C-alpha cells in the first residue's frame, strides 16, 4: 500500500518494500527516502556505487522537424548546439524570468528526451506545448511506461557493465539508446514498440557529483535490471542520500533553492541561459541581468558544530544579510553545510552567522562544491 493513495507508485515499488525502505511522498510519487541509513547510502555513492530509483522524474519525448525550434523557445540553453548523442542542463522560465524548472535535455538520433523534476513535469509540458508549431512536432509524455535507475559512484561503470549494459567510451553527458538484453522481453516485440525508439535511453549523467549513469528503461524490465544492478554490488540509495549528495556539490533543488520566485541571475545559473535564442522569459532575464543580482545563492560551511536547515536567517555583525534555502549535515565533511541567498556584497571567504533555532552558528561563505568531486572524472 502506498503511504498515501493519491501518490503514484514506481514500477520498482515491490523492490523497495522487499528492502523495507522508508517511503515518502515526493513530487506526487511514493518513493524511497532511505533503506535504513542515509549516511551509509551516501558513503556507498561517494566510495563505491549506489543505485537510485528515479522513476518519478518526468520524461517527455519531443520529435518531428519542429522539435528543435520548439525547445529553443521553451528552454533557456542553446539546443541548436546540442548534437545527437549529447545532453545539457537547461532551465524553463516563465514570462517574468522566474524559474519554472531546471532540467536535462538529451538529444538522440530520433529526437529529444526531456527530463523535468517530477513536481514540475506538467508545468514544463505546458510550457513546451505553448511553443513552436504544433503541426511540426509531437510531444508525448512517456512516464507511464518508463522507469529510471541512476547508478552513481566511482564503481558505477563496473556495476553497469556487470549488469549487462555497455558504457565503454561514454563521456560525461553522452547519451544513446539503451539496448537492454533483457531476459524478460516478450518474443517478437521490437525495441521500437517501447516508450522511446530503441527501447530506452542510456546517459552518463546524474546529480550526485560522482561518475554515474542514468538508465531509462521500459517499466516492464525495470525490476530485473534493478536486481542485476544490486547483484553487481550497488547499494540501494534513497532520496535522503540524493539530497545530501547534491547539496555537497552545491547543486540547487527546485522548490527549495530555486523556484518561480527566483531568477537565474541570482541563482546563479546564467551559464545555462543563452540570450538571443528567443526563449520564453528572455526579455525579463536580460533586464534582470543588466540590473545585476539582487542577492546571490552562496554556499555556507559551518565553523564548528551544529547543522543549519532551510529558512534560517543569516547575519553579519548582527544585521540580516539573507536566508538559507537548504541545509544539512555533510556526511563527507562531517559538518553542517547550507545554500542560501545572501546580500550580493557578501563575498566568498566572509564570516557570517546562521541563526539556527535561536542559536548563532558561525559559518564561512564558500563557493560550492563543498567536496572535491567531479562527475566528469
Amino acid at each position, binding site marked *: 500500500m502506498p503511504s498515501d493513495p493519491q501518490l503514484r507508485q514506481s514500477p520498482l515499488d515491490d523492490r523497495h518494500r522487499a528492502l523495507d525502505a522508508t517511503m515518502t511522498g515526493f513530487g506526487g510519487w511514493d518513493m524511497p527516502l*532511505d533503506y535504513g*541509513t*542515509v*549516511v551509509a547510502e551516501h558513503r556507498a555513492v561517494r566510495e563505491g556505487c549506489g543505485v537510485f530509483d528515479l522513476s518519478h522524474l518526468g520524461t517527455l519525448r519531443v520529435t518531428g522537424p519542429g522539435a528543435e525550434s520548439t525547445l529553443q523557445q521553451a528552454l533557456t540553453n542553446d539546443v541548436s548546439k546540442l548534437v545527437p548523442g549529447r545532453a545539457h542542463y537547461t532551465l524553463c522560465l516563465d514570462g517574468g524570468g522566474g524559474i519554472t524548472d531546471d532540467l536535462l535535455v538529451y538529444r538522440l538520433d530520433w529526437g529529444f528526451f526531456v527530463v523535468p523534476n517530477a513536481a514540475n513535469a506538467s508545468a514544463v509540458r505546458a510550457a513546451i506545448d505553448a511553443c513552436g508549431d504544433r503541426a511540426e512536432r509531437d510531444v508525448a509524455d512517456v512516464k507511464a511506461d518508463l522507469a529510471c535507475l541512476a547508478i552513481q559512484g566511482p564503481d558505477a561503470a563496473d556495476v553497469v557493465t556487470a549488469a549487462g549494459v555497455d558504457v565503454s567510451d561514454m563521456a560525461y553527458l553522452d547519451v544513446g539508446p539503451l539496448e537492454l538484453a533483457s531476459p524478460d522481453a516478450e518474443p517478437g516485440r521490437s525495441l521500437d514498440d517501447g516508450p522511446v525508439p530503441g527501447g530506452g535511453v542510456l546517459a552518463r549523467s546524474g546529480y550526485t557529483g560522482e561518475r554515474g549513469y542514468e538508465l531509462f528503461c521500459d517499466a516492464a524490465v525495470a525490476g530485473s535490471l534493478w536486481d542485476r544492478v544490486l547483484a553487481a554490488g550497488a547499494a540501494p540509495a534513497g532520496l535522503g542520500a540524493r539530497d*545530501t549528495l547534491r547539496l555537497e556539490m552545491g547543486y540547487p533543488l527546485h522548490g527549495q533553492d530555486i523556484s518561480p520566485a527566483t531568477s537565474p541571475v541570482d541563482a546563479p545559473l546564467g551559464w545555462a541561459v543563452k540570450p538571443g535564442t528567443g526563449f520564453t522569459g528572455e526579455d525579463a532575464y536580460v533586464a534582470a541581468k543588466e540590473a545585476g543580482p539582487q542577492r546571490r545563492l552562496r554556499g555556507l560551511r559551518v565553523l564548528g*558544530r*551544529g*547543522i543549519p536547515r532551510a529558512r534560517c536567517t543569516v547575519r553579519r555583525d548582527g544585521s540580516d544579510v539573507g536566508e538559507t534555502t537548504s541545509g544539512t549535515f555533510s*556526511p563527507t565533511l562531517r559538518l553542517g553545510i547550507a545554500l542560501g541567498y545572501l546580500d550580493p556584497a557578501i563575498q566568498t571567504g566572509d564570516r557570517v552567522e546562521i541563526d539556527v533555532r535561536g542559536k548563532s552558528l558561525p559559518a564561512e561563505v564558500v563557493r560550492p562544491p563543498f567536496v572535491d568531486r567531479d562527475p566528469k572524472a
Partner: protein
Amino acid sequence: MNPPDLKYTEEHEWARADGARVTVGITTYAQDALGDVVYVDLPATGTRVESGQPFGEVESTKSVSDLYAPVSGTIVERNESLESSPELVNSDPYGEGWMVVIEVEDVSVLDGLLDAAAYERLVANA
C-alpha cells in the same frame, strides 16, 4: 528490547538511577525514528534542568528533536564521546550512546515515569 530495569518518558528518553545519579539517553524506538544521529547538543555540567523541559537537541540527517529531562536536577556529567561519535546513539542507545547524568535531590521522582511494559504499550500504539 527496552531494558526492564530502566524508566521511560513519553518523549522516548530513558533514565537509569544509581543513587542520586540518573543517567539519561534516548530509546531504540527514538533513534530508529530519527535515523542517523549526526549531532547531539548537550548542556554544560552544572546546568540546572527541569523535568519535562527541553535540555538539549539531537539531530539526524533528516530532522532535529528536543531532548526532554525525565527528572529535575543538575547535569553532573555529559557523554563527551558523542561529540566525535554521535552514531553511538544509533548503535548502542542504552549503553555507549548515553547522553547525560543528572543529579537529583529526590530519587522518588523516578516513580512517576513509565516502566518498560508501559513504554512498550506506548510505542506499540504510536
